[in-house]
């Protein structure tokens, strides 16, 4: 069980009920601080729904970040979200391969996106070669959006881990299909 009680619409004032509209455990916990919930979701939603950054690349960056940090909650959710925007099972395998420092055969940019997520997560910086590949393919706005996605999910996994959020049953099946590999687990 999570460290705080999950809230539902009945626990919240009229104006705050929208926070838990998704029914996701993350929103049901953040709702203890409604304005915090709103600003956090505001950035996450912007990056997911409004940014013109390529959606599969964005999801690959997220999957890499949360796979490396072993965040069961974030990984299970983004396995599903990423599939909805075209990330394939092969891509998910590629992330496992690249995390184990193998060559997945993905295109240059895809590999650089995954490498960027690993470098930022582990080292909090980017190698010159990684940045140069990103910059060769992406506009400055998309570079910012991509790096912000990776930064934000480094925040998210800590929030999820600290508050010990439970994976909802609907998402548990995602983890069963793609368990963390032994090296990661």
């Amino acid at each position: 069980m999570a460290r705080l009680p999950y809230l539902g619409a009945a626990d919240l004032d009229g104006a705050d009920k929208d926070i838990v509209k998704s029914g996701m455990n993350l929103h049901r916990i953040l709702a203890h601080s409604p304005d915090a919930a709103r600003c956090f979701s505001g950035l996450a939603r912007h990056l997911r729904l409004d940014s013109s950054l390529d959606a599969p690349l964005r999801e690959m960056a997220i999957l890499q970040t949360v796979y490396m940090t072993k965040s069961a909650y974030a990984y299970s959710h983004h396995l599903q979200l990423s599939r909805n925007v075209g990330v394939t099972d092969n891509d998910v395998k590629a992330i496992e391969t690249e995390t184990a420092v193998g060559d997945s055969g993905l295109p240059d940019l895809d590999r650089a996106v995954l490498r960027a997520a690993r470098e930022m997560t582990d080292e909090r910086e980017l190698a010159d070669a990684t940045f140069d590949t990103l910059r060769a393919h992406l506009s400055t706005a998309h570079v910012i959006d991509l790096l912000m996605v990776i930064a934000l999910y480094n925040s998210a996994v800590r929030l999820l881990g600290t508050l010990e959020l439970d994976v909802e049953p609907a998402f548990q099946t995602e983890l069963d299909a793609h368990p963390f590999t032994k090296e990661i687990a």
Partner: protein
Amino acid sequence: MARLPYLDEDDLAEKDKDIVKRPINLNRIIAHSPEAAHKFGGIGGYIRFGSSLDPRLREMAILQVGYLTKSPYEYSHHLKIGRDFGVAESDVTAIETETAGGDSGLPELDRAVLRGAREMTEGMKLSDDTYAVWAEHLSEAHIVDLTMVIAFYNGVVRLLGALEIDVEPEYAPELEKHPLPE
């Protein structure tokens, strides 16, 4: 030099000029993606001005993240901001002591905030002992806020590092007074 050019008001559309109203280098870089900058600033603004979490504790948590991750930009800025919100010189020394595994003599909650920041930064979670102290002293809303502060600044230091954002000359003296560990 940073990895992208710093932008100023003149480079931005009318509706986006407010992003660099506080012309710190971080804002001047994320302005390359104005909507993202607005939303990112929304979290920072909530943390600093919207939350009712004790501001000194909040700044202690932020300083602990910056010190532990050796982020010159984050640490220098929050040495100054922290002072404005009641962080004393002895608190900064206490962060150094606690990071090195010592007992600073700070009150239990202060120590648990610093320990929580270190645990979350390094292990992505919080020990039961640390959480028990938070829960004893803080409301549920403040627990969420404190968790978000520490989580958010773990993102911030990565953005700063990845984009190689430079410490501005007016913040550099902070680091001379309080150098980061080697």
